[in-house]
């Protein structure tokens, strides 16, 4: 028996609201499969499962807010036979949901495998009237049966999804369904609060030091022009991809910038999962990861970056992307600033910034020249590394960008 728990999708997350189940009892799941959608203060995040197995029991109904670590479902390991659903305590309620209705104590719903879908007569009739597909609904009634409330809830959710992606189903027991605009405002406020918490923690706990270096980009841009000449427009590489790859390779060489400060010690990360700071159109910011950046060819990274930005702005990020960055890159070049000095996202230990590439006067080999340069910066955690190593790390990024063909 495996407990599938509410994951932490960032150091500042202590609870999440289950938005949607993508599986039901009896479904086989594979490692990496998306099994649920969880609403955090930042986004609706697709949650992946990290085990192979068969879903035995869904323990948390759609709409419920639970603390990180609360079991959401139980899985049977491959070959394990279903026993009786275990009696469990109610999921640990997250603090301060003002909208919970008083409910009498009762065991968690169980959904035994192996019978036809249990639907109450009035729920089945109403589902036809409201056009709700009963498959995929999670029953909250006696013995896990689908009840009238489940159908009405599903209908309300579907109604609200159409005009306003990302989907945020109304939670049960709220007085009135919220409009999409209201929800967007609420999410905006929640995201602001969450950024405030993370950044305050960062500046409170992390002794930052800052380094900067001006990088000549001409060789990289010339190489990109040459590369892109042979590519369709949709597959053209952007300078940002070179920067990501260079940061990842430098982080592999200087592991003290790639990992986490936890429990009064530095824990280096195994791979280089580079978080990309993405500003959202409605305001706010997320920094989901592209996995294993140092291992991937540039074309794949470009596709990953395009996909990640699109999904971040649509609010459909995956749990591993939210929780995995080992180092972050922020690029404000297109906003027209010369340089950016980042604030480290806890519990990471470094953030690399890039400003606007522009033609600037530089001195090369004793002569004055005009070159395209970009201001790179490093904000690093002095607990995990020192300035001398930071300087070498930043210089390594410079060195790599001068040899784009090797990236």
């Amino acid at each position, binding site marked *: 028996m495996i407990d599938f728990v509410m994951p932490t999708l960032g150091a500042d997350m202590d609870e999440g609201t289950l938005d949607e189940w993508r599986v039901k009892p009896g479904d086989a799941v594979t490692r990496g499969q998306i099994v649920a959608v969880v609403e955090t203060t930042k986004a609706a995040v697709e949650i992946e499962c990290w085990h192979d197995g068969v879903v035995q029991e869904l323990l948390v109904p759609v709409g419920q807010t639970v603390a990180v670590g609360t079991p959401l479902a139980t899985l049977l390991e491959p070959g394990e036979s279903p026993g009786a659903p275990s009696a469990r305590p109610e999921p640990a309620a997250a603090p301060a949901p003002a909208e919970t209705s008083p*409910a009498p104590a*009762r065991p968690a719903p169980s959904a035994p495998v192996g019978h036809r879908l249990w639907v109450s007569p009035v729920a089945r009739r109403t589902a036809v009237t409201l056009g709700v597909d009963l498959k995929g609904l999670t029953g909250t009634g006696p013995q896990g049966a689908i009840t009238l409330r489940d159908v009405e809830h599903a209908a309300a959710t579907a109604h609200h999804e159409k005009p306003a992606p990302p989907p945020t189903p109304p939670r049960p027991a709220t007085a009135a369904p919220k409009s999409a605009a209201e929800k967007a405002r609420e999410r905006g406020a929640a995201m602001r609060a969450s950024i405030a918490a993370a950044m305050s923690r960062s500046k409170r706990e992390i002794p930052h030091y800052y380094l900067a270096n001006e990088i000549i980009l001409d060789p990289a841009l010339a190489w990109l022009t040459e590369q892109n000449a042979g590519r369709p427009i949709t597959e053209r590489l952007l300078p940002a991809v070179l920067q990501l790859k260079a940061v990842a390779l430098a982080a592999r060489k200087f592991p003290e910038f790639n990992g986490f400060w936890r429990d009064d010690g530095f824990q280096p990360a195994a791979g280089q999962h580079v978080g990309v700071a993405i500003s959202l159109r409605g305001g706010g910011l997320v920094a989901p990861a592209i996995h294993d950046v140092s291992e991937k060819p540039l074309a794949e990274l470009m596709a990953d970056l395009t996909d990640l930005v699109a999904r971040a702005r649509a609010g459909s990020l995956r749990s591993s992307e939210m929780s995995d960055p080992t180092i972050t890159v922020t690029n404000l070049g297109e906003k027209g600033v010369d340089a950016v000095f980042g604030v480290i996202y806890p519990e990471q230990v470094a953030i690399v910034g890039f400003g606007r590439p522009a033609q600037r006067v530089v001195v090369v080999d004793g002569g004055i020249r005009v070159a395209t340069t970009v201001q790179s910066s490093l904000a690093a955690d002095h607990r995990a590394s020192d300035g001398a190593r930071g300087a070498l790390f930043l210089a390594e990024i410079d060195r790599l960008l001068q040899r784009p063909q090797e990236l």
Partner: protein
Amino acid sequence: MKTTYRSAVHDAIADAMRADETVVLLGEDVGRYGGTYAASKGLLAEFGPERIRDTPLSELGFVGIGIGASLNGLRPIVEVMTVNFSMLALDQIVNTAAALRHMSGGQFSVPVVVRMATGAGRQLAAQHSHSLENWYAHIPGITVLAPATVADAYGMLRTALTHPDPVVIFEHVALYNLGDDLESLEATDIRTAAVRRSGGDVTVITYGGCLPKALEAAEELARGGIDCEVIDLRVLRPLDDATMLESVRKTHRVVVVDEGWRTGSLAGEISARIVEQGFYELDAPIARVCTAEVPIPYAKHLEQAALPQVDGIVAAVRGLFGESPR
């Protein structure tokens, strides 16, 4: 006016006898003793032995006398000490009283009222404590009443005495001391069920001695966020389907509380009617709270354990909800 269920029955008999000289009362110990449950105390002095008749211990005989008297123009009230003893008079009630209007092609009317105590809770053991209302509710040709309030104890008896056909009234032994404060006592209808408590989450259907328990359970459940509607059947035959189904259409959940045994019970009949007429309104299986399938024990703790109780009603209601009451 503060009064009790016992006094309401007494007053209904007395008022009816004053208003109509054809009304008479007969039964075991109704005269000199004033009735086993003191429902006829003092009536012998006021109305005399012609109209208040003590009978021998023979239910077959004196229920038959009541039926014969009604056929000849009187309005007899026959008191049977408990429903258990009425078994001896089943032949009179089922084969004679219930059938004569139909067997005579409508020529004979049998306007007899048979009152009897029913139910457990007073440590009277198995031969004095059963709830066999369901047996009578099975029989076409009679009207079966179960007043559960002080107002109905008076009102339903008064109306029964105007009814042209046999009426059997069940008075639960646990209700005789029930008190109420009423402006006046009046005749009440003998056709409809009554909603005793309005609620939106679940319908609790009950009658007679279980009504106070159901109302108490509803109050406890309300504190936990479940809003019960409590229906008092009042009339066990014919059942008021309309009131029950109107409530089911609102709450979509039903618990039936019945002091009879579950097997072959009124609770079963009610469940079947709701499924037949309201299946597509149900959001959960119908639950029943009935008496344990044993002869009612004498020992107090065993007797209480055998009967429907507030805890059991609360648990049955909660069992109809999965995650949340709404």
